[in-house]
C-alpha cells in the first residue's frame, strides 16, 4: 500500500512541479511571443500591401515601415470568440485602407492571406501571404509578384475564384490548389469585411494597439 501511495505521490508531484515551472515560463515569454507573431507573420504581409501603394521600397525603408505598422494594429470586438485584429494602411498620413487576415484550405494545411481594402470604395488594394505550408517551389509561388499583382485594385465585386471554377483569378499552372486557397481566403476576408464594415471603420481612428 505504501509503495502505491509513493507511486501516485511522486508522479503527481513531478507533474505539478513541471506545470508550475511552465506556468512561470509562460508568463515570461508570452508577451514576446505575441509580438513575434505580429512582427514576423502579420506585419510583413501588411507591408507587402503598403508597398503596392508606395512602389518598391529599399530594405531600410521597408524595415521602417514594418516598425511603424506595429502601432497601426487595431482590435475590434465583434462579439466573436476574441477581438478581431486588423491593420490601418495609410497613404500620405491619412488612413487609406484596412488590412485583415483570413484563411483558405491549402494543399497542406491552412493558407493565410492578408487582404487590403480601400476604405473609400471597398475595392481591393492588394494581398500579402501570412502563413502557408505549401510545397516548396510549387505552391509557394503564390507569394511571388507574378501571381500577387493581379489582385491590385481589383473591384469589390470581382468573382474571387480561379478561372477554372468560373472566377476571375488566374491560377498558377501546376498549383491550382494553392491558387484556389488564396482566392478562397480573399473571398472569406471580403465577406467578413462587408459584414462588419461599419464596426471596423469606427475602430480605425481609435488609439492604436489597444491590446487584448
Amino acid at each position: 500500500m505504501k509503495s502505491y501511495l509513493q507511486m501516485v505521490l511522486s508522479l503527481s508531484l513531478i507533474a505539478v512541479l513541471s506545470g508550475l515551472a511552465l506556468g512561470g515560463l509562460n508568463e515570461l515569454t508570452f508577451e514576446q511571443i505575441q509580438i513575434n507573431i505580429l512582427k514576423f507573420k502579420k506585419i510583413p504581409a501588411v507591408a507587402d500591401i503598403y508597398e503596392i501603394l508606395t512602389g518598391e521600397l529599399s530594405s531600410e525603408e521597408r524595415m521602417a515601415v514594418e516598425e511603424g505598422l506595429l502601432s497601426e494594429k487595431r482590435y475590434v470586438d465583434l462579439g466573436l470568440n476574441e477581438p478581431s485584429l486588423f491593420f490601418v494602411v495609410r497613404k500620405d498620413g491619412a488612413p487609406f485602407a484596412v488590412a485583415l487576415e483570413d484563411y483558405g484550405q491549402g494543399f497542406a494545411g491552412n493558407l493565410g492571406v492578408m487582404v487590403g481594402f480601400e476604405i473609400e470604395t471597398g475595392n481591393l488594394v492588394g494581398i500579402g501571404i501570412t502563413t502557408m505550408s505549401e510545397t516548396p517551389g510549387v505552391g509557394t509561388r503564390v507569394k511571388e509578384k507574378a501571381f500577387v499583382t493581379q489582385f491590385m485594385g481589383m473591384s469589390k465585386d470581382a468573382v474571387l475564384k480561379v478561372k477554372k471554377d468560373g472566377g476571375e483569378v488566374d491560377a498558377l499552372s501546376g498549383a491550382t490548389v494553392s491558387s484556389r486557397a488564396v482566392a478562397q481566403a480573399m473571398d472569406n476576408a471580403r465577406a467578413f469585411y462587408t459584414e462588419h464594415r461599419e464596426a471596423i471603420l469606427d475602430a480605425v481612428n481609435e488609439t492604436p494597439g489597444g491590446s487584448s
Partner: protein
Amino acid sequence: METDFFALIISAIFINNILLAKFLGNCPFLGVSKNMDTAVGMSAAVVFVLTLAGIITWVVDHYILATFKIEYIQTLAFILVIATLVQFVELFLRKSIPALYKSLGIFLPLITTNCAVLGTAIINIQEDFSLLETVVFSAASATGFGLALVLFAGIRERFEIARIPKPLEGTGIGLVTAGLLALSFFAFKGMI
C-alpha cells in the same frame, strides 16, 4: 467554411501521407516492416489508437486546456493522454478481448512513442478542425499509415531473395526503397 470531406480523406491517405510525406511515425515504419504479419498488426493497432487519441485530445484541448487558458502545456497534456489511453486500451483488451490482445498487444506499448499519434493530435488542433473533421482526418491519416506500412512490408519481404549492395544492407536499402515508394505516392498529387 464547408469542408470537402472527400478531399480531406484523399489528401490524408495519399497526398499528404503521414509516413511518406509528413515523416510522422518512421521508427515503427522501419522497425516492424520486415514481415507482413507484424506490419498488418501494427497498422490495425495504430488505426485504433490514433483515431481514439485524436478524439480524446480534441476534447481535452477544447474543454479543459482552452477553458483554463493553459494551451501552452498542450504537448505535455497530449502525451499524458496518449500514454494513459494506450495503457487503458491494453488493460481493456487483455480483460475483454483476449484474442485481439494476443495479436495487437505487443504493438501497443510502442504506440505511445509513435509520433504519428501525437503529431496528428497536434495537427487536428492547429488546423482548427471540428470534432467531425478530427475523426475523419485521424482515421484517414491512420489508414494512410497502414497502407504505406503494409505496402512497404510487401516490398521488404522480397529483399530476402534480392542481391543488395553490401553497405546498404538492412536500414540503408529500406530507406532508399521508402524513398521510391514516396516518389510513387507523389503521382497522387494531380488528383485534387
